[in-house]
């Protein structure tokens, strides 16, 4: 009964956002969404087959696909209804991931073991409060203040708050951790807010390619691993295929799989070329589009690893359990934190006056 209700809601959301996109004449967004729905439907059939055959990956793919359905549906609804809804939704996403980051860190009063202290709550509240300001600035398109507010003013606010609290012990650690949090999740990730002004299609371009990279690198890595297993132990090809990026952080990630999936993403990005909106300085050129795609491929890899690194340091596997099959919100947005600001600036430098 509950399951049926869930499915009906999901179909409703997908249907409403598709028809809204159609009604607003956003043909590009409509076609991307249609493709996503088809891909998800294919995966839904795939996991049913895998479950019937008792394949090992079956339950994991099922959970992931169901969560993907919801993420795609909610995201498309947010982008298709109204500009205000898109800003509110993405702002909330910033907030939720920032909250998850701060919740992940142990907070105690013992100086040696702690990462955060209970006195840090003020500064943490300040970093949450910067999110509505950023949303407003992006909404009124005040670019200059948007781009310096967090790295200059909020950054300086934290030590000022600490001084007002008159504290010395452990303040360096706390300052670093809090600053890292809002630079990652409010500043870097917050670029997606200003990206809506470029056209929701640019945001969709960036997010779709980043998530595609995550999937591709998984399968490419698996394929290369199998290939390397078949080669002779001392062959140069095998050594090249098994060249690891960072064994301590993630023992499975190799340079070859990362590079190949970056190239694949850059090819995939060319599919978006006809869909991209016209910028003030003209349309996106083919070469530049491939370059942006390649940057997404490379930076997504490092975004993924950066948060694996942070999670390893704290000693958790997933950052939460909000998204069944994926873990927490941070586990899903980690690569976006690296790709969104870079894609934004690459396009802005080249195609805006």
């Amino acid at each position, binding site marked *: 009964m509950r399951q049926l209700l869930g499915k009906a809601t999901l179909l409703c959301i997908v249907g409403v956002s598709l028809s809204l996109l159609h009604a607003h004449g956003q043909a590009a967004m409509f076609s991307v969404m249609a493709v996503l729905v088809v891909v998800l439907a294919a995966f839904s059939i795939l996991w049913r087959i895998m479950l019937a055959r008792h394949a090992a990956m079956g339950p994991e793919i099922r959970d992931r696909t169901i969560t993907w359905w919801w993420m795609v549906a909610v995201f498309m609804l947010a982008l298709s209804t109204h500009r205000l809804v898109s800003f509110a939704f993405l702002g909330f996403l910033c907030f939720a991931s920032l*909250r998850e980051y*701060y*919740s992940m860190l*142990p907070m105690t009063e013992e100086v040696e073991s702690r990462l955060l202290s209970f006195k840090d709550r003020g500064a*943490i509240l300040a970093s*949450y409060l910067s999110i509505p300001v950023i949303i407003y600035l992006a909404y009124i398109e005040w670019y200059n203040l948007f781009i310096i507010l967090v790295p200059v003013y909020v950054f300086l606010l934290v030590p000022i708050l600490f001084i007002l609290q008159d504290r010395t012990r452990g303040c360096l650690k706390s300052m670093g951790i809090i600053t890292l949090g809002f630079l990652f999740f409010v500043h870097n990730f917050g670029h997606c807010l200003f990206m809506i002004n470029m056209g929701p299609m640019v945001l969709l371009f960036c997010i779709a390619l980043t998530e595609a990279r995550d999937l591709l690198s998984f399968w490419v890595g698996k394929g290369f691993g199998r290939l390397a297993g078949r080669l002779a132990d001392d062959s140069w090809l095998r050594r090249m295929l098994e060249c690891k990026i960072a064994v301590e952080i993630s023992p499975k990630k190799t340079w070859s799989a990362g590079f190949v999936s970056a190239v694949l993403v850059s090819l995939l990005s060319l599919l978006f070329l006809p869909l991209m909106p016209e910028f003030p300085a003209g349309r996106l050129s083919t070469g530049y589009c491939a370059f942006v795609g390649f940057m997404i491929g490379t930076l997504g890899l490092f975004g993924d690893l950066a948060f694996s690194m942070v999670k390893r340091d704290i000693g*958790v596997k997933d*950052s939460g359990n909000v998204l069944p099959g994926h873990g927490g919100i941070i586990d899903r947005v980690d690569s976006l934190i690296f790709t969104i600001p870079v894609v934004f600036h690459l396009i802005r430098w080249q195609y805006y006056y």
Partner: protein
Amino acid sequence: MVRIVIHAICRCLISLFFGTQRAKIPESRQCIVVANHNTHIDTLVLLQLFPLRGVNRVRVVAAKDYFDKGPGGIVGRLLFNLILLDRRSKNPIAAMAPIEEALRAGDSVLLFPEGTRGEPGVVRPFKGGIGKLALDFPDIAVQPVCLHGIERTLPRGGFCPVPFNVFAEPLTPVYGRDFAPLGPSQGRKALAAHLEKAILEALEGKPHSA
């Protein structure tokens, strides 16, 4: 009715700000809910475990010295169906009489055996009163709930709640009848100690964000 509307709004706000997830307690009939206490938000989060229309049938045990008069009393009475407990009473058994009355009337009871919010993140020894209640009503489930991460949101002395992920984890229920063979005095202590241990273990076991 007004209270149900207020609770519906509170539930939405709490889910948005603290990312609480819907966990239902397995025993949705009459029960005694016991949890670790750190903030004023605890009670609101714990009431999320109950169905919305049942909110009025959950009696919240609160300290008389804190919630009788003043702003605490007004807000407390507006939100909850309170039972005021005199923490400084000379005769603890008489002081607990209203709770027993509520249980006899078929209401659920929510209480914090630590007796105070205390230091953030530190679970204080559980008081024996919960043991007495459980032994007097041996067939009503005592439902321990472990609140993760809540001590950060509004610790004692803080005046503004700060959003952090909060997770209420219902643990295995305990029945007074299982402790009755130990005798009234021993059984009471053993039950309180058992609950305390269960909640401490749950706090250790899971990361704050889970």
